[in-house]
């Protein structure tokens, strides 16, 4: 009897020990998985820096692309990316925020609202290259806009629209209902409630979403390759401000362009090692841009969560 007890106890101990070992093993496994991701991240950076750092001089930013790798720079590319982002932001922000407000504050629970919501969900999962095909068929050929800054900006705006809409909705949803009720009680109309209360309070959250959306757009290559962005450009779009009347010009919208990711793509497909160095340097600049934007968004959200106490 006693012997059986001991063996049962022993068995129990062994089973607990096994479970504990498994537990430890999984902890190690989990940490190893995270570490593997981290190592990949570091390798990516070290590789880019070791190969591209030498090319990162001021000249690299102020020179156009060139047939000679040592003289080539990213002037047209970063100016192109910047102008395209300008169009993207101007289009995506009002439409995305407007759609978010509509869905949270106005939309009745009917079929149309359900259709809009399903569409937004589905668009978020459509591969980016399909947006490129949409732009090629619609903007470039049907509307005749050509492969211009405007076309690229519109395409990327459609691409990041779901991101802006979803983050706007989340930001609006976190505002407690009593704020709205207080405003309505004072006789405010629905738009006044939105304009004076909902929108200002959700602004940091919306901003976070817009920054994340733009950081995604600036790195997108596939859609703008598809619309036929030019890979070799040795001029800048016309300046939007001039010293003669009418002072403001929108010709830059219809200018052909190249962009950072296109420039990198172009250089990676060249066999010469010198161009690979250029690709590394340009990739470093692009990653720095997106990381700064992402870090800004993460920081904004972090601050928001700390300061916001309704």
């Amino acid at each position, binding site marked *: 009897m006693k012997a059986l007890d001991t063996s049962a106890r022993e068995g129990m101990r062994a089973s607990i020990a096994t*479970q504990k070992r498994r*537990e430890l093993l*999984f*902890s190690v*496994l*989990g940490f190893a*998985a995270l570490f593997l*991701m*981290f190592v*990949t*991240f570091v390798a*990516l950076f070290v*590789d*880019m820096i070791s190969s591209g750092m030498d090319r990162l001089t001021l000249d690299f930013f102020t020179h156009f692309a060139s047939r000679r790798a040592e003289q080539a720079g990213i002037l047209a590319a970063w100016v192109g990316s910047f102008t395209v982002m300008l169009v993207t932001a101007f289009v995506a922000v009002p439409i*995305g925020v*407007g*759609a978010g*407000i*509509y869905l949270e504050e*106005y939309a009745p629970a009917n079929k149309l609202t359900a259709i*809009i919501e*399903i*569409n*937004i*969900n*589905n*668009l978020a*999962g*459509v*591969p*980016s*290259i*399909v*947006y*490129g*095909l*949409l732009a*090629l*068929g619609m903007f470039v050929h049907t509307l005749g806009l050509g492969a211009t800054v405007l076309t690229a900006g519109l395409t990327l705006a*459609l691409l990041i*629209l779901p991101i802006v809409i979803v983050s706007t909705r989340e930001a609006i949803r976190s505002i407690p209902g009593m704020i709205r009720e207080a405003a309505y009680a004072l006789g405010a109309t*629905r*738009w006044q409630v939105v304009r004076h209360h909902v929108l200002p309070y959700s602004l940091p959250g919306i901003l976070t979403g817009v920054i*994340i959306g733009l*950081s995604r757009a600036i*790195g*997108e*290559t*596939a859609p703008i*390759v*598809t*619309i036929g962005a030019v890979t070799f450009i040795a001029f800048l779009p016309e300046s939007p401000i001039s010293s003669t009347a009418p002072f403001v010009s929108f010709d830059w919208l219809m200018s052909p362009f190249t962009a950072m*990711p296109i420039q*990198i*793509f172009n250089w*990676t497909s060249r066999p010469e090692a010198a161009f690979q160095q250029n690709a590394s340097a340009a*990739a470093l600049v*692009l990653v720095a841009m997106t*990381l700064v934007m992402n870090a800004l968004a*993460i920081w904004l959200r972090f601050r928001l969560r700390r300061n916001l106490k309704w």
Partner: protein
Amino acid sequence: MSSTATGTARAVVGNRMRYQASRHIKERIVELVLLLSAMVAVFTTLGIVYVLVKESLVFFRAVPIWDFISDSQWTPLFSDAHFGIGVLLSGTLTSSAIALTVAIPLGTIIAIYLSEFASERVREIWKPVLELLAGVPTIVFGYFALFFVTPMLQQFIPGLPGFNLLSAGLVMGVMIVPYISSISEDAMRAVPMSLREGSYAMGATRLQTALRVVVPAAFSGIAAAYILGISRAVGETMIVAVAAGMQPNLTLNPTQPAATITAYIVQVAKGDLPHGSVGYQTIFAAGLTLFLVTLVFNLLGFWLRRRYREVY
């Protein structure tokens, strides 16, 4: 005297009503504008379907749909043109399979670890790191696959060509991990604490609780994460375009170069192809195939996610 008072009162009421009316009109206009911005999402979907179907219809008038599905060659720009989408699909399938072999185990382990094992502090540090990794542009990952991972792999696998599906797939997998881990973790965190407490009270360890209680309870959310991962792998363009080569190749062998659907579209769009030629229309037919494949996965993922939301 009294009549003027009534007149004033009437004027006040009139003003008030006019004000109310203008206020009402303004409200209606604002609502309409907001509705129109929300409708842009619907117009975008309609636009995508319209463009893809319109150009594909022209294509399928020239190429029988059966040839498109069954032909074993993809040579649309040769004089002896063949249009077998299976060739491109094989590249897409192989690279996606490699990517998911990496991303699903890694993403799941990281999600379980962060949700059930890691302390609050560890989670606060690692989640932003993963998000930053997800923010790296795919063209940069493509560059990384071609100039870092492929040379590294060539030391282990002699004779590995410079362009291959293996390195593109591996890097794509790393790219997808943050998506899978983030959605799976959200699903696991949505599992009520009482389920875990019940399991702990029965003497289960954290690992047993995680694998036998939390993961099954969050299953539909985790499955949705996998499906979104699949859809991302299928639609990924730049990594395969840069690192896997653009040669159409009917193969499931990861050590070979091959073009995917997306890489083919990029390759054609990059060159100067006249609007309206058969080559131009092939990219829309290929795009339609891609759109349909990802649509099926997206709807499946959407349905699964809605189901798990209803449980808790």
